[in-house]
């Protein structure tokens, strides 16, 4: 049952991505993207609810569940970003990322057929896992906004102004504002996650390595924020930094 929910959610994301891209190619913005993304979110929520019930704890056991939780957080932030900031085409760029993450989660061996019951779950461990993955959702969306910025920046620089993509992308300044806000929300949640991580019991050296890797990612985002606030940063470098930091940050999960 849970696997079918994930397949349905992935199909919704793939349809949303394809539908959105076809609309963009025709020079229009599809209002259906948000409907498909709502479908994605409901199915993800049901999947994680079922897995959580079977585990008896937060459903973040193994890479498959982490990827689904990350996709859920990404979708959640997309839907939460209010109408003012749910900038045009963000869904079209978010849907393919969700579809890819969930396709990987569906690969054989990524999800346990029968989720294990976890006895004696630790409060700080659950707080660490959930806030960290939520943080990654916000940071992933910030990276999506970064990619959108890089595409638009290139089109404006090279004066390629006729594509449907160009016509429908939100303005440069709006993208930069959204990118920064999501980065700050993600950074705040990551701070909570890391504090909770240091408060939870550490069974072996892998946990410490995982926390140190998370701390390195956090330091990267803090450094980026400080540079932006003090010295200033071109939009291109800021967007590139956010995208690279997010890709590097996924390395934290190697120590899970």
């Amino acid at each position, binding site marked *: 049952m849970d696997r079918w929910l994930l397949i349905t959610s992935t199909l919704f994301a793939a349809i949303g991505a394809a539908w959105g891209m076809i609309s963009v190619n025709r020079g229009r913005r599809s209002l259906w993207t948000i409907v498909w993304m709502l479908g994605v979110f409901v199915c993800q929520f049901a999947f994680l609810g079922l897995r959580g019930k079977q585990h008896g704890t937060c459903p973040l056991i193994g890479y498959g569940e982490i990827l689904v939780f990350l996709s859920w957080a990404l979708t959640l932030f997309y839907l939460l970003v209010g109408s003012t900031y749910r900038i045009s085409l963000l869904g079209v760029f978010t849907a393919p990322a969700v579809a890819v993450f969930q396709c990987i989660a569906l690969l054989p061996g990524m999800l346990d057929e029968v989720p294990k019951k976890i006895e004696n779950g630790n409060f700080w461990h659950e707080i660490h896992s959930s806030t960290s993955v939520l943080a990654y959702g916000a940071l992933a969306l910030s990276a999506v906004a970064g990619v959108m910025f890089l595409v638009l920046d290139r089109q404006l*620089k090279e*004066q390629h102004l006729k594509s449907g993509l160009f016509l429908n992308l939100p*303005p*440069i*300044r709006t993208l930069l504002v959204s990118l920064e806000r999501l980065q700050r929300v993600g950074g705040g949640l990551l701070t909570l996650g890391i504090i909770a991580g240091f408060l939870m019991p550490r069974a072996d050296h892998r946990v410490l390595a995982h926390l140190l890797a998370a701390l390195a990612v956090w330091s990267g985002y803090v450094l980026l924020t400080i540079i932006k606030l003090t010295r200033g940063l071109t*939009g*291109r*470098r800021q967007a590139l930094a956010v995208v690279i930091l997010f890709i590097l940050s996924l390395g934290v999960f190697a120590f899970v």
Partner: protein
Amino acid sequence: MQLLCLGLNHRTAPVEVRERFAVGTSKLGDAAIEITTMEGICESVVISTCNRTEYYLVAQGDSDAFGLLEAHLAHKTSHADSATPHFYRKERNEAARHLCRVVSGLDSMMLGETEIFGQVKQAYQSALGAGATSGTLNRLFQRAFGVGKKVRTETRIQEGSTSVGNVAVDLAEKIFGHLKDSEVMILGAGEMCRITAQSLVSRGARSIFVSNRSFERAEKLAADMGGSAVRFDEWQSVLERVDIVISSTGSPHALVHREDVEKARRARKYRPLFFIDIAVPRDIDPAVGEIEEVYLYDIDTLEQLADEARVRRQKQIEECERIIDAELAKLNLPGT
């Protein structure tokens, strides 16, 4: 009963003729009701914009409504005889079709422009308020407004900007979004600068700084635009705060160099900067465009974009005409 249209526009009459027949917005209703007092004319709407004056009439079949109206205009303006060759006369379905084309922006100087829709609506409401319309013109104008909306939503007739000023504004909005938080500096005080800056101000640009070799001319343009004048040797310091620079001086060589912008980058905290160079020879060294956060557009690029939009709009005309014909066929209006 027959539907008639008598009019002149920017294609048939020069401005010195058009201005003689222009009717003030507040007098459109009175002008329409005055026409209905003529023998054989039952309904009337008068449309008057800077590019056209048109009279839509419903007249009895055997009346010489065109002759009566032209005589009336000759009497009112004392110039109608010399203006007669500039008038076009359209009857029945041709008149209805013409109104739909006007409302859809197909007969406008700037193809596909939207302002005409509101102007015709205002003219119709003035006539309606004055009691100059009845069944036929009410049905015709309501349908024409429906057709105008359909043409705009179902075709790309209004897509893209067709003037250099509007292309520049569209690009500025693609970079900065709403222009209400954007500051603009103008280098030069010529007409092109004024037109482009006015387009930016009309879309909300906040502060305007004008710098020109002649400080007096800078002060005059600044006063006209509600901005501030800057001495020509001080424009570099203003570069630190503005978002958009429009340049059109008569300088024979580049005025803004890469070093000028490099110096201001740190103080600007590397915020995006949009340069619009509408001067020939160019005022802004192309090397400025290589700076990461700078978007530089010159007159050739802006004109090319405007031309492309015009061509795209031209290609839509056939589709617009098809919609108009289909909608008029459904109307089945008496007098057409």
